């Protein structure tokens, strides 16, 4: 649905997007992640034909973003980052205007406007002037606009910032529903949400793609993934540590005091096998009482922070 090859964007001499290549298949929901200023919005603006790329190629729904801009824009529903809207119009009036711009005929226009208003829960705000809407409602108007023409591809730049928790949940549900019929590319900083709605993420740092893959794979790839954490009380901590280290599948055990005098935390690094039961049995034999035993789940947040830090190191190394 979306194919990007070596897409590059310079703002003057500043390289904002550096030869990115990726694909989004039909029906996928892909999250575009990255720290502030990574180039997400820039990449999205090139794909929606708002800005020309400096180099590279890209197609959306089979149409070239350079030579077939009109067809690209016909296939895309786009919600820009800060949801610019005509402040003086009423919600319903604005959506009708946008429907006309999208080429919907008079008969279809009204039913579509009703549908998206319903969908984005704007029914009670239909006559309200946009200037007086709260941020969350503006956001919904932007989303309603993107959905108007029932486009093949939805590109949403931070669709859920500013929404209340209930609305975030609603938006998430909505995006999941949309995913059944649309291809979605969204950028976001809200990682739990990305984790729930996206089947795949692409991570940009300083204009470059540093990760592209399924979320569970990426999370598994970070250092310390799947460590088992054990908190227990007993004597001869170092002996216990060595015994744990001798268990089958264990690579390394770190010991640290856990605050109280005979309470310790063991961080058990394994080759991937689950050693929780063996560890519990071992501690029971040694007369330790177990307070907590779990496998640390690495989060997308850890992945994100680690990737950004790595890039920082590379950059520092490169500069020297």
């Amino acid at each position, binding site marked *: 649905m979306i194919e990007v090859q070596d897409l590059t964007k310079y703002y003057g001499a500043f390289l904002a997007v550096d030869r990115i290549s990726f694909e989004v298949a039909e029906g996928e929901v892909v999250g575009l992640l990255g720290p502030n200023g990574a180039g997400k919005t820039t990449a999205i603006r090139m794909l*929606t*034909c708002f*800005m*020309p790329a400096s180099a590279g190629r890209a197609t959306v729904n089979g149409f070239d973003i350079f030579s077939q801009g*009109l*067809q690209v824009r016909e296939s895309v529903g786009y919600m820009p980052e800060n949801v610019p809207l005509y402040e*003086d119009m009423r919600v319903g009036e604005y959506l009708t205007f*946008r429907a006309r*711009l999208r*080429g919907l005929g008079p008969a279809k226009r009204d039913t579509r406007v009703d549908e998206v208003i319903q969908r984005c829960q704007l029914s009670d705000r239909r006559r309200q002037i946009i200037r007086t809407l709260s941020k969350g409602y503006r956001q919904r108007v932007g989303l309603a606009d993107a959905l108007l023409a029932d486009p093949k591809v939805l590109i949403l730049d931070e669709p859920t910032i500013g929404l209340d928790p209930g609305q975030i949940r609603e938006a998430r549900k909505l995006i999941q529903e949309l995913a059944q019929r649309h291809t979605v590319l969204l950028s976001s900083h809200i990682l739990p949400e990305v984790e729930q709605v996206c089947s795949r993420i692409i991570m940009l740092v300083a204009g470059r793609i540093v990760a592209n893959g399924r979320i569970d794979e990426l999370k598994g790839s970070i250092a310390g993934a799947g460590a088992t954490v054990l908190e227990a009380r007993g004597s001869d901590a170092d002996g216990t540590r060595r015994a744990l280290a001798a268990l089958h599948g264990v690579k390394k055990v770190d010991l640290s005091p856990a605050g109280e005098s005979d309470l310790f935390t063991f961080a058990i690094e394994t080759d991937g096998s689950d050693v929780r039961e063996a560890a519990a049995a071992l501690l029971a034999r040694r007369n330790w009482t177990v307070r907590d035993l779990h496998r640390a789940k690495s989060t997308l947040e850890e992945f994100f922070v680690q990737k950004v830090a790595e890039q920082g190191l590379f950059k520092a190394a490169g500069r020297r």
Partner: protein
Amino acid sequence: MSKTLALMNRELRAYFYSPVAYVALVALYAVLAVFLLVPGLLSPRGYFEAGQPAEMRAVFDTMAYILVFIMPILTMRLLSEEMNKGTIETLMTAPVTDTQVVLGKYLGAMGFYLLLLAPSLLYLGLLVAYGNPDAGMILAGYLGLVLIGMVYTAVGLLTSTCTRYDIVSAIVALFVLGTITLLCTVLAWGATALRHLAPTADWARWLVDRLSDWGHRFFEYINVAKRYQDFSQGKIAFDDVTYFLVVTALVLFITVKVLESRKWRA
């Protein structure tokens, strides 16, 4: 076509959302009233001279100059505001062409301009009621006003496409319109005055004569107000109509190109 009309419709409505439109309306007719009524009241013979055909020439001539100041204010936000508020992003990522955007905006502004002229029909009503106006002259006058409005609006739209600051757009448009009306009148007059230098040498006299002649003709040629006067005097010349239409088309064409250039600039 339907997209152009949608854009026009929105633009036209946008005028009524903002106080600028009402202020312009009041300003136009207040200034017009001052220019027309004050001399009439001061004159001992009253406003309409008995026995003379009633005419609106004063209205038309004054309008063309007042509009130099009013049109930039009416056109300044057309694209500047879109760029400043960021709505250009939703506008240009909708499936519309640059030409549709420019035409839609243009027609919207022209629509408002025509509405702005409407109250002057009241004055016409007065003429009909109390005098014996020459229909041909009045038609020619209105045609002239519409044509000159087309040029003014196109110029204002062009400057608005060039900058995101509406005040800058208004000032540049005022400068351009001032040049093609008032300043050209002055310059054409100045060119004629050159003749009075009357140098002694034959070759110098020839040169000055030529310069004066060409200069005068050039400034008369590009002087929009001058051409407009033909209409306000009741003349409809094919040449003048063509001139206004060609200038408008040319300015709109440049506007489309400037909007397109956003795509390869950036």
